[in-house]
């Protein structure tokens, strides 16, 4: 009894341990599913680990992780400031399309000019996508979750529409846009990739992700803006009472969050895809961002690590077929991890309920228990 309670205490008080435990539980549940399917747990997980630990494998993981980190930062930023940016998916899509349009139409510009221009276009597009929703919320009180989900679909079809415009559409048979100009590509040089034995899509977008991680941390922790946004996130009435413009804060938060998601789209396009296909279903980067933000506890550095972890799962997971295990196993693992992270509330409530149940009968009990625990 006391052992169990103290364990709960320990887990709920220590976010890092809690997340780590959730991840282990995720793999445990995955292992159970593998066992039920009669597949070898060791072989599947061995494959997962071996495919991400080589240099080439790890470079793939980093490439996969870039958009996840940046979109994760976007969602984490919105969490910190009290809005739930479920619209990162749409912001990602308009961001990558904006970067594609610039990268195709202005392809003759020199690299040092074109790449920042693509980034700016993507961030602007994402920010606008976020601000429209913010405006609907602050002006008419429309729930941002609903309008964001709808804006995801608007972005989806807008992207398909733009991809069909003759000036943008591929000249070949592909159902996609043209490839962006090589001047807009963030790929490392072929020479370097071959010499180091990296993934063919290795690119320096990860540096942008690092800078963004630091920047988001700086904004949230070290600036007045971040302080105001957080205050609105904790309690918007108290913030308003304290003299903070709540509506302006929400718009700012969504603009920054949207810009980050849009940038994620640009990084994915310029580093990996180099073109955007006509979607037949949502690619899910925005939703992955929510998972990454949750695993990373909405802490910028946590998000960075979670993004790498998620990238590793996605890249390693795509190889599970090679040993006969279904790739959907990854979804089971991720789902379980998110589930156990999300029920942290239950951990805390359990603890709270136990204390409350004891308190009125024996007021001295908590003190006595504490003594007992110290021994």
């Amino acid at each position, binding site marked *: 009894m006391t052992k169990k309670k103290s364990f709960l205490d*320990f887990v709920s008080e220590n976010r890092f341990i809690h997340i780590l435990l959730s991840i*282990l539980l995720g793999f445990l549940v995955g292992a159970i599913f593998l066992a039920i399917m009669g597949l070898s747990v060791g072989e599947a997980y061995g494959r997962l680990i071996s495919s991400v630990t080589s240099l080439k494998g790890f470079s793939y993981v980093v490439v996969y992780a870039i958009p996840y980190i940046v979109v994760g930062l976007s969602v984490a930023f919105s969490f910190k400031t009290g809005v739930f940016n479920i619209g990162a998916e749409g912001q990602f899509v308009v961001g990558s399309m904006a970067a594609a349009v610039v990268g195709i139409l202005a392809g003759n510009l020199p690299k040092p000019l074109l790449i920042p221009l693509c980034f700016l276009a993507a961030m602007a597009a994402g920010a606008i996508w976020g601000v429209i929703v913010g405006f609907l919320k602050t002006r008419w009180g429309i729930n941002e979750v609903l309008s964001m989900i709808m804006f995801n679909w608007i972005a989806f079809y807008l992207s398909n529409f733009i991809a069909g415009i003759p000036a943008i559409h591929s000249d*070949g048979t*592909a159902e996609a846009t043209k490839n962006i100009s090589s001047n807009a590509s963030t790929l490392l040089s072929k020479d370097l990739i071959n010499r180091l034995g990296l*993934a063919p899509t290795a690119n320096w977008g990860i540096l942008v992700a690092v800078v963004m991680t630091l920047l988001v941390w700086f904004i949230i922790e070290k600036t007045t803006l971040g302080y105001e946004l957080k205050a609105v996130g904790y309690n918007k009435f108290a913030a308003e009472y304290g003299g903070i413009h709540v509506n302006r804060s929400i718009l700012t938060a969504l603009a920054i969050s949207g810009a980050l998601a849009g940038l994620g789209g640009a990084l994915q396009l310029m580093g990996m895809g180099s073109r955007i296909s006509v979607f037949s279903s949502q690619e899910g980067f925005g939703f992955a961002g929510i998972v990454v933000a949750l695993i990373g506890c909405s802490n910028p550095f946590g998000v960075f690590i979670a993004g790498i972890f998620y990238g590793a799962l996605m890249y390693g997971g795509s190889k599970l077929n090679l040993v006969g295990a279904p790739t959907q196993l990854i979804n089971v693992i991720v789902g379980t991890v998110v589930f156990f992270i999300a029920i942290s509330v239950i951990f805390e409530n359990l603890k709270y309920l136990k204390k409350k149940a004891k308190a009125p009968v024996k007021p001295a009990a908590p003190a006595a228990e504490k003594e007992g625990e110290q021994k």
Partner: protein
Amino acid sequence: MKKILALVLALCMVFALAACGSSSSSSSSSAPAAAAKTKIGMVTDVGGVNDKSFNQTSWEGLQALAAEDSSFEVNYLESKTDADYQTNINTFIDEGYDLVICVGYMLADATREAAEANPEQKFAIIDDSSIDLPNVACLMFAQEQASYLVGLVAGSVTESKTVGYVQGMVSDAMNLFGIGYITGVLEACPDATVLQYNANSFGDSAGGSTAAKDMITKGADVIYHAAGGTGMGVIEACNEEGIWAIGVDTDQSILAPDHVITSAMKRVDVASQDISKAVKDGTFAAGVHMYDLSNGGVDLAPTRDHIPADVLETVEAAKAAIIAGEKSVPTSTADCPAFTLG
């Protein structure tokens, strides 16, 4: 102290489980790998392996091949986004697969790039003939021939003299479906009207349904689609409204057994098996491999119960004439002015 102990115990439990799994399995898995196997890897397009269309058909073909001949090892990798094609192809190359089969022309650019970078690696691509490299086999299908046959069926069974056609996208390869179909319809029923619609998507089932219902309002009583997932909506609408639908690529009668009169089959499974066997026997040949009526690469689906006997006779006669070379189906829009989408 206790809490740390509990945590350590919990961790031990998890790792112990993973560890015992690994020790029991690694011995069993490494043994059969020693025999020299022909390894065939298949990369799907974003439709995934359960698309009820050519990804699924070619995977089923490969599975059947591996089941009957244990010297084949077959595997697939699914692509979730456009950017995954290259990664998946490279995975198979890194794993030392003998042949990488890329399903669909969406993979053409990625295949060309990988084939140029790895001249020793053998590739096959389905539905694309644009790659001219010594290590790439292009598996092409005479879709106009199968479409022509279902066109004959449609022209024969229509009572309203109005038939419909939904195409997934306008491109030279896709237009062949429409050209063949319309040629067939007009041959069987010279004064028929063919309503044509370009859905501009292979994944818009709702759009396919709307287009089909629109055609039905205008009097169509048979609709053929060459539109992948969009076509699912077409068949659904035909099923609801009680008119005939004609499927494509695979035998789609399972989707609506009472209302799919037949399907224009593309034997992607046969093509994948052939090229895999060729790799094993050392007879792999690059360039275009054409699958048509004469080698059974395209045909009417085996489900033909709804087709009247006399119509079936006409179709069989036309098929024999094409195989014998007495008849040819046009392949350009110029030869088929009634086709308006191109």
